[in-house]
């Protein structure tokens, strides 16, 4: 058995496209517990990440509208205090006397 392990890069490539594996690599993987496990792990990355738990339960939607209101009010007033709106920025206060 060739003791030189496959590189991590090669393991990832082979896991994404098993058809590209060369015969000597295949032979090595079949006989090498380190590389075979690495290959299994590489193949599990996509499904494991897809199973990432949702974070919806951490979102407090009741506070979202208040936060949106605050951003609208505070940023608008900051922009107003700066003065000298460009024409493009006048949308914040369409009825202002600019």
């Amino acid at each position, binding site marked *: 058995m060739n003791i030189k392990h496959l590189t991590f890069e090669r393991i990832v490539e082979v896991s994404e496209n098993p058809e590209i594996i060369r015969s000597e690599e295949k032979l090595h993987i079949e006989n090498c517990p*380190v590389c075979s*496990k*690495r290959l299994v792990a590489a193949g599990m*990355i996509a*499904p494991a*990440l897809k199973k990432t738990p949702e974070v919806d339960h951490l979102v407090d939607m009741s506070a979202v509208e208040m936060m949106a209101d605050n951003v609208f009010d505070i940023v608008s007033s900051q922009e107003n205090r700066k003065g000298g709106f460009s024409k*493009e920025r006048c949308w914040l206060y369409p*009825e202002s006397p600019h």
Partner: protein
Amino acid sequence: MNRFLGNRLEKQLFCELDDNELVSYAINGSKECWNELVKRYYRMMFATAYRITGGRDTDDVVQEVLIQLFKSLGSFRKEAAFSTFLYRLTVNIACREVKKMTNLSSIVAVGNEVIERMLEGEPSENSSFESLDKDEMEKMIRKALFKISSDMRMYLTLFYVEELTLKEISEIVGSPITTVASRIKKGKVLLLKEMERMA
């Protein structure tokens, strides 16, 4: 238009407007349309920020995203989807915040983990996660995701967790598709190496 929206449109009608319409009305001063836009995308912003920051200060990051979004609504050209525009903003701000946090913790604590990694170097050729079963390995993969750099985590998160296409990610990060594909591959390599360190 603003007055018309403020006085005439019932709340449920805002839900029927598409993103571009909401942006246009928000630009013209409609707070209701701005609020609807935020409500529509809040979960997406929060989830993306949470996954990039690893849950650290996510609320602050999202608030910063909202502020920057409000300030930059006028620069949204509607050539790309609004969701792409918002993803880009969220990802940029979340990555920036993670870098700030990382720099700060490095200065203050030098990070035990950093020292540990320096001592350990590359994972040993013979070390492996041979003894782990499938569930343990899946958990380890998700845990390792938060140990790699925020940039790499961002690519893996957008591709595998958010399930965006390479094209969508390339629009978000402003890089060619080939670069995105190679970053995802590099991210997977780093993830594997990290798992071996953790095992």
